[in-house]
Each structure stands twice: as structure tokens, then as C-alpha cells.
């Protein structure tokens, strides 16, 4: 067992031979305090020692006030968790593979460091969410332990390969446990990387870690496993809360999903279409959108070609042409601009956009409105953008357009071929029509 303290606190504790989780007695003035030495997160100062008292409370004791430290009992090993043995899965259930990549859903706060530790075994999840085991014969693999903000295009390929391999070896569906921050990027990537998809691939996350009683992981994971085991859609989907309540989850097409709130359970919204399905807390699946149907046979492939050097930038009122030039001189092979409104940028940078296109760097125009379709024919600015060679993203989300451009460039498309690829619907990312029930009012009487 180490000592997580630094600086002054460390010197004091080291001198007493203390390590994290030892039972200590400390003198401060005329008082004696005893408690278990708790690790102190790096981010805090070195002026305090944290102990856990008998009554369960932690308190910080100022190093300056401590006149003596004595180890009463060595703490030994780090805190142990003993998940109960899982009960054997019932026979005849569909097989569902959970692939953990890290993030809140597949990890818990490591109190010893304040950091996040990945879930090590399926038992930990199955004990908390027995519904999963009741719905399917669940297997669990930790394929990486990455915060979702650190996930890269190389990781997307690895996840796609792992998912395909599970699907090709008998799984009825795959559930990818993923951090929520960039889950919609990964979902879009899997949608383009996985070829000949015959079964559901579901990304699932949690906005409340599973070490909290109110965790949303219970509904999210059990719904995801249901959808993977029984859902009729051969799609890449995100399954997360559909409301602030634990009543139902939405299955959202991977190329139509976006995280729209930093912390709410129902942060993920479908953009420009309704959710594909609503999964009730009881496990009922109601299909509410267009789907490609699950097929019995056929091998799922991965086309791993991807060009990560694509920039996603915002248009904003004081953007300059220099900024665009800096992007291209940084080695990016393509640029997606989240334009304003219908897909506009200030007229003064259109010439630089033309320069980029002429130098072989494609520029795709999406909208920072997120909802609705880009239209470059309505106003003269848009027409000038088209004339400069920009590619309109249709109703693709900027993030989806970015991932798609990485894929298109990775496959070696350039010029008209790339334009054709970007403007055609490959995986449901460009809607034929946008139904009226696809825009979420933020103020709904009687609902939150």
C-alpha cells in the first residue's frame, strides 16, 4: 500500500511510517484524533491529512496543527469488493456480448485516488443489474479503458473489429459500453466502418456512475441488452434514457444522435428524426422509426480505412481567413465547417474556402443549428460557397459529417467521388424527409 500524499503532508506521514488506509492516532494541541488515513486526491493541497473517523465521516486535519502521528494498525490491502458469484445463465437465451471501452458506465469512482476505475468483471454489473442476466446470456469483455474524450479513430476501428468478431461468433447483438462525451462520434464511426451489418450494435453509457444508487446505468444497460437480444433493427444505435425518469429508454440511430446536455440522464437526442425505438423499463420494445431489419445470416465486415486528419470548426462572426489557412497548414486533409443558419459563413472567408478546395482539401458545410437541413441555394452567401466548391452536408450533424469525411478520405475518395459519397445516404445519416415530430420543444407543459 502506498502513500498518496505529497509535500508537507507526505513528509509528516512518511516519518511516522504511515500509508494509506492505516489506522492512525494524531495529536493536535491537547487533543487526540484517531482514524483511517484516507488517500488525498492530487488536486488538493499538501496542507491537510484526511482521516476517516469511527463514525464514517472524513475530515481534513491541518498538517500545521499536528504534533505527532502514530500508526495504530496497518491497513493492509486496498479496499476490497466482493461481488457475489453470478448465477448460471438460463439456457436458451440469446447471447449478447458487452464490450467495455471505459467511461462512467463501465467504471466506478476509485475512492483511493478519486479517479475512475474500470469495472473488472461481469459479476459487478450483473449483481447490480440482474435484469441483464434474465434477458440474455451476457458475456463481458473489457477491450479498452479509455475516457470517451480520449477515444481516437484508431479506437473506433478496434471497437468495430471487436463488435464484428462477436457478431460473427454467434452473438445476437453487441452492446458497447462507452463514455458519453464522444459516444455519438463512435456511433457514427461504427455506422460507416461496419459493413453488411445483420444485427444490432448498441452503444450505451451512463450519466451517473454505477457506484451511485440513482445510477441511470440500470435502465440504460438493461434496455441495451434487451434491444441487442431481441430488437429487430440491424443498426448501430445509442440506447440511453428517453426522459428524466427511469421509465423508458430511447434507441437512437447512431448517425442521428447527439449529446445535448452535460449531465442529464436524457442528454442524448435524436436529431431530424424520431428515435428508432422506445424500450420500456419492463423491457418492451416499440419500434418508432425506420429500420433496416435484422438478418439471419451473413458475415459482418469491417472496412478499417479512415483518415483522422479532418478538422471540425465553427463559423463565428470574427472568424478570419487566416484561421482557415492555419487549419490547412496544420496538416488537415479535410475540413467540416459548422456554419450558421442554413450553412453560412462570413463572406470575407469564402475566398479562403475556395483556396482550400483548390489545394485539394475538401470543405463540407454543415449547420451549428444541428436541427434542420443545410441549404446553400437560398441566399447569395450559400451560392457563393457552392461556387467555391464547398460540399453541403444535408441534414447531417457536424460531428457525423466529420466522421464521414474521415471515412471518405480514408477510402481514397477525392473530388467528385468524394462529393458523391458525402452527399449520398450511406447509413441513415442523410434523411430523405424530416418529419414534423423530430424537433424537441424544450418547454413542454407537464413534462421535464
Amino acid at each position, binding site marked *: 500500500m502506498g502513500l498518496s500524499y505529497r509535500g508537507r503532508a507526505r513528509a509528516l506521514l512518511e516519518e511516522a511510517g504511515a500509508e494509506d488506509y492505516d489506522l492512525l492516532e494524531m495529536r493536535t494541541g491537547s487533543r487526540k484524533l484517531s482514524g483511517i488515513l484516507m488517500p488525498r486526491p492530487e488536486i488538493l493541497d499538501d496542507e491537510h491529512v484526511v482521516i476517516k473517523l469511527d463514525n464514517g465521516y472524513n475530515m481534513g486535519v491541518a498538517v500545521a496543527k499536528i504534533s505527532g502521528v502514530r500508526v495504530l494498525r496497518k491497513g493492509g490491502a486496498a479496499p476490497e*469488493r466482493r461481488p457475489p458469484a453470478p448465477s448460471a445463465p438460463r439456457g436458451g437465451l440469446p447471447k449478447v456480448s458487452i464490450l467495455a471501452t471505459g467511461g462512467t458506465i463501465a467504471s466506478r469512482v476509485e475512492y483511493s485516488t478519486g479517479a475512475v476505475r474500470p469495472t473488472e468483471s461481469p459479476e459487478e454489473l450483473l449483481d447490480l443489474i440482474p435484469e441483464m442476466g434474465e434477458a440474455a446470456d451476457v458475456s463481458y469483455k473489457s477491450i479498452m479503458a479509455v475516457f470517451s474524450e480520449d477515444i481516437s479513430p484508431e479506437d473506433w476501428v478496434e471497437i468495430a473489429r471487436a463488435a464484428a468478431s462477436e457478431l460473427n461468433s454467434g452473438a445476437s447483438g453487441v452492446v458497447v459500453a462507452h463514455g458519453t462525451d464522444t459516444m455519438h462520434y463512435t456511433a457514427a464511426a461504427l455506422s460507416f466502418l461496419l459493413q453488411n451489418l445483420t444485427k444490432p450494435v448498441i452503444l450505451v453509457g451512463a450519466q451517473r456512475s454505477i457506484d451511485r444508487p440513482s445510477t441511470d446505468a440500470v435502465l440504460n444497460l438493461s434496455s441495451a441488452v434487451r434491444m441487442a437480444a431481441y430488437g429487430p433493427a440491424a443498426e448501430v444505435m445509442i440506447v440511453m434514457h428517453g426522459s428524466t425518469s427511469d421509465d423508458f429508454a430511447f434507441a437512437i440511430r447512431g448517425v442521428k444522435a447527439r449529446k445535448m446536455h452535460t449531465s442529464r440522464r436524457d442528454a442524448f437526442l435524436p436529431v431530424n428524426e424520431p428515435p428508432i425505438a422506445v424500450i420500456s423499463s419492463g423491457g418492451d420494445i416499440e419500434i418508432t422509426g425506420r429500420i433496416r431489419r435484422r438478418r439471419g445470416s451473413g458475415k459482418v465486415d469491417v472496412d478499417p480505412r479512415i483518415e483522422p486528419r479532418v478538422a471540425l470548426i465553427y463559423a463565428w462572426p470574427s472568424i478570419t481567413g487566416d484561421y482557415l489557412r492555419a487549419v490547412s497548414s496544420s496538416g488537415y486533409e479535410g475540413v467540416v465547417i459548422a456554419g450558421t443558419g442554413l450553412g453560412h459563413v462570413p463572406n470575407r472567408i469564402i475566398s479562403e474556402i475556395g483556396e482550400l478546395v483548390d489545394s485539394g482539401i475538401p470543405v463540407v458545410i454543415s449547420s451549428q443549428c444541428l436541427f434542420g437541413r443545410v441549404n446553400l441555394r437560398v441566399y447569395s452567401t450559400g451560392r457563393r460557397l457552392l461556387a467555391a466548391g464547398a460540399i453541403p452536408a444535408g441534414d447531417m450533424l457536424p460531428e457525423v459529417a466529420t466522421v464521414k469525411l474521415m471515412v471518405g478520405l480514408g477510402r481514397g475518395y477525392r473530388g467528385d467521388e468524394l462529393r458523391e459519397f458525402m452527399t449520398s445516404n450511406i447509413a441513415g445519416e442523410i434523411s430523405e424527409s424530416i418529419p414534423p415530430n423530430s424537433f424537441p420543444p424544450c418547454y413542454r407543459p407537464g413534462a421535464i
Partner: protein
Amino acid sequence: MVDVPRVRVGLEIHQRLATHKLFCNCPSELREDEPDYWARRRLRVSYSELGSIDPAARFESLRNRTFTYGAYSDATCEVELDESPPLPMNLEALEIALEVSLMLGMDPVDEVHTMRKIVIDGSNTTGFQRTALVAMGGEVKTSSGTVRLKTLCLEEESAYIISTAPEGATYRLDRLGIPLIELATEADITSPSQARETALTLGRVLRATGKVQRGIGTIRQDLNVSIEGGARQEIKGVQELALIPKIVEREAVRQATLLELRDRIRETVGEVRVSEPRDVTSALLGSKSRLIRRALSNGERIFGVRVDGLAGFLGVEIQPGRRFGTELSGYAKVFGGVGGIIHSDELPGYGISEDEVRALREALGADRSDAFILVLAEEAAASTALEAVSERLIQAGLGVPEETRRALPDGNTEFMRPLPGPARMYPETDVFPVKTGPLIERILRKGLPEMPDATIDRLQREYGLTREHAEMLLDEGRVGLFERVAAASGNLSPRYVAAILTSEMRALKREGVDVEGIGEESLSEIVSLVDSGILPKEGVRDALTEVAERGPAALEDLRRRKPPSESEIRDIVRKLIRDNAELVSRRGERAFSPLMGEAMRILRGRAPGSLVSGILKEELRRALRGTPRG
């Protein structure tokens, strides 16, 4: 039952603070109106930091319950809904907590760490209550000895429960997150009356800060009661100080009786043996008992267990009007969600006949020396209920189990849940620790508030108040207001001002006037209207009532209402006499009394009674002189 044995009592006081919520900026105000939104949630327990699932937490999660939360769009936010991480700790609340700690001679911690105390009865949307240790040590003096203080914590108030059922509970979120000081004493209290005195003293110190909420529910006491050989019981939710001695006494009696029961059980059977539950529905199929018939028609069945050799033990009275069987019933209700139990010591009864009892005994293999217990429910609920009852029975042969109990209005208590262990505290990683040094410096620079005893002495000495009025001002948190108002009222005696703020308000409260609704501003305004002669003393009660009913707007009218001049009064009186000519001619001067009452009603306390009566007498005499008596 036994004599009251020697007790050991520890006190836990929960006091709401008058500042915004502890981890968000929402107001700490309770709502009466229907919430704007509802959210439904479930809670799951996970492994703790130290590896064991707390038994109390496990117990709640076994009941797969759904919780419904009512939220207000203008008074609650994403934090209460557990949709957003907590904001940093409310430093104003922490400062109040530190101030109380220092007033009580407690030792504040150097760095306050917020913890998560797992509470999964649904009363917190997160499934835990955020709580932080602020200070330890210190003591209070009482007339029968010193009581050591243990801890002062700053924590979140729970959500307000609207309704509860085995399958779930409904809460309102207006109350969730209000800052709460939890002040705990050591179990140094040795008598029921000392328990009350300690609670009163600590309550006064809290109020002396002037920054705590007042009114019903804003302060409540939990009691830890044990006797020699008994076990610690946490008794929750005592709102009336006056009830404390009775609750302590009755709990002591309950424990002593349970110990006696244990000894008798040991003598009689050695250790308690309870049979496996059995379906005994067939023994009561033709029963005329309404209870049984209703249960059967609801599709429920009857399950029973035999308790070897303990006939007569279940009917033992352990608190006035409460039998041991009632305790068992509490376990069946809480764990199984069933309506209760029927036990052999109350049979024949409930319409169950002698013959049916015999059939039941046969079905359970019980002879006359055995007791038995029945539960009417569906199988799963019944077996959970009977399992809990069996466990409680086995404990009866060992002693007194540690429990969390709920205070009942009659001074008895009932089983709520097992006493939670200390393992259910985890660090709240979303909240940074707070150093207390800078806050303490600030408090000491300003100076600590006066201690309650000193205030009572000073009010008597400086203002000539009675001790009773001084204590009332203190207990109702009106000392500051009194001093401000008394200083500003040149024409009124401090005694009179104190009387308005204390006895006058209490009298109105007894009459059912909602005096809690009268703000300090309004009170001070009313006194100043009296002081400046605009409002006669006779009008104070009406003015207070009006403000209580209509709010501060009523004061506008009062302010505009100048006292009527003598000639206006005279006009009113003359009109009154004319309108009541018949009465005046019939009763002569004896008409004074009804006319005086009427005049004061018309003037609604705007003119002093002495002035009105003088004018009325004059005018009445004048009228009578001009009117021939008939």
C-alpha cells in the same frame, strides 16, 4: 410492565437554516401547491468503498420500489432532480454551522469533507444524503449535570414525503437540499427531563444565531435511548419538546420489558424455535371472519408459523397499549409490505372461532403450549413478512435488537427499519473540501452572538421585561426585532412592545390566526403605527389579524387610515343614536353598552375606547334630554 429503569439518552437535533439550499441556489422554502413536474426513479445499491453492502441499504433495495418526485419549475433545479452535479457547498450555511460550533465550545475540523450517506428509502433523489462533519467536542450544562456534545454536521434535508406504499413512495423536492445542522450529544443524559432540558438549551443556541428557520418541522429531535443490558434505539421525528420525557420513559420501559421477556423465554424454551411458513388457508376456508373472507376474496392466502412453547408471550404488553405482537407486526409490515399479523394470543378473535383456532393449531402442528402467527397475503409477501417476524422472534430470546424507531404521537414508538451501520458513508467526489480557517476568522472578527442565558438576563435588566417575556422573545427569535422596535418607539414602554411581540401573538395563535405569516417588517410597522398614535392600542389585534390574513398589503390601508377626529367620531355617534332611536328611547342610558359596542365595531379600533365612550355618553345624554320618555 416494569418500573422505569435508568436510561442513557443521546440527543440528535436537526435544525433547518435560513439560507438557500446547501448544494444549489434554490430557495429553502416549502411549497403547498401541486408540483409542476413529476419524475419517476428507482434506486440500486452498489458495492461500497469498503466492500460490504450496508444491511439497511440492502434492506431497502430488496424492496424493488419506484419513487416519484414532484419538482417546481420556479423553486427547484436540476440538482434536486439529480440531473446535475451539486454546486460547491453553500458557505453561508457552513458559516452558521461554524458559528454554532464555536458558541457551544466545539472544535471545528480544519477541512470539511462532504460525504454521501447512503439512504435509499427514496427520500433523496441521489440515493444518498450529503453530509459533512463540521465540529466535534464541547458540552452543555444542564441543571442535572453536563452533557458532552459529540458532533455537529451540516447536511441536506430530505425530500418531503407525500405518500408511501410497499411498491413505492411519492415525494416533493421543495424540501430536498435545505441546509440542516445535525447536532448530536453523547449518551450522557440520564433522565427524561434532562433530555428535554438539553434539547431546549441546544435549540436556543441555534436560534441565537438568528439564521435558522422557525416554525413547525424546522427543528426536530431524534433520541438515542438505551438502558443497561438493552440496546441503542434511534427514535426519529420528535417534533414536540414536551413529548421527549414521555418517549424516553416509554422506551426505557419497552427495553426493560423485552429483557424480562428474554429471561422468561430462556427459562421456558431455552432458545426460540420458529417453524417454516405453511399455507394454512384450508383451515379457514369456511370462516365467517370478515377479515379472512376479505383476504380470500382478494386472492390472498393465509400463511402461518408455529412458535414452540411460547403461548402467551406474544400478548405481553411492552409499552402502554402496545403488545409484543404489535412489534412483530411492525416487522411484517415493513419487510413484507403486508397489513400486519394475527397471533395466537389474540385468538379467538377477529371473528375467528374456537374451532377454527383448533384447525389452525392442527395445520401448524401446534399444541396448546405453542404460539402461532398468521399473515394474510400473497405467497411472496407472506413469506418475506414471516421470515422477518421469525428473525425478530429469535432475537427476543437474545435481548433487544438495535432499531430505528418512529415516535408516535402518544409517546410510544414503532419499528421503522434496522439500525444502519456506520459503513454507509462514502466521500462525495463531486464536492470539494472546504477549509474552515478563513470562515472562522470572519466569525470571530464579527464576534459571536450572545448566548441565550445572557440574552434573557439582559432583556430583564435593560428593558425591565419579565423573565417569561424575555424567554418567549428568545424562543420565538424576536430578540433582535424587539430591540430594534423598542429603540424606535419613543412613546411606548419596552414592556408593552414585548407584550405585542409575545403574549399578543400567542393569544392570536390560540384563536387560530396564522401569526407565522406575519413578517418582521409588518410587526415593526404595526408597533410604529401605535407609537405614532395612528393606530390605537385597541386596534393592534385587528391589525395583526388583518396582516395575517391579507399580508402586508393590509398595512397600506392602516397607514392611510388617519385616526378619526373628535368631530368625525361625534358624527358617527350621532348617526348611531338616530339609527337606533327606538332602542335609545326604550332603554335610556342603558342603551350605552350596545351602542358603545357598535361604535367600536364601526371604528374598527381606529379610535381609543376612552375617547369614544366619552363622546357617546355626552351625545346620549343630549339625545335623551331632547326625547320625551314614553
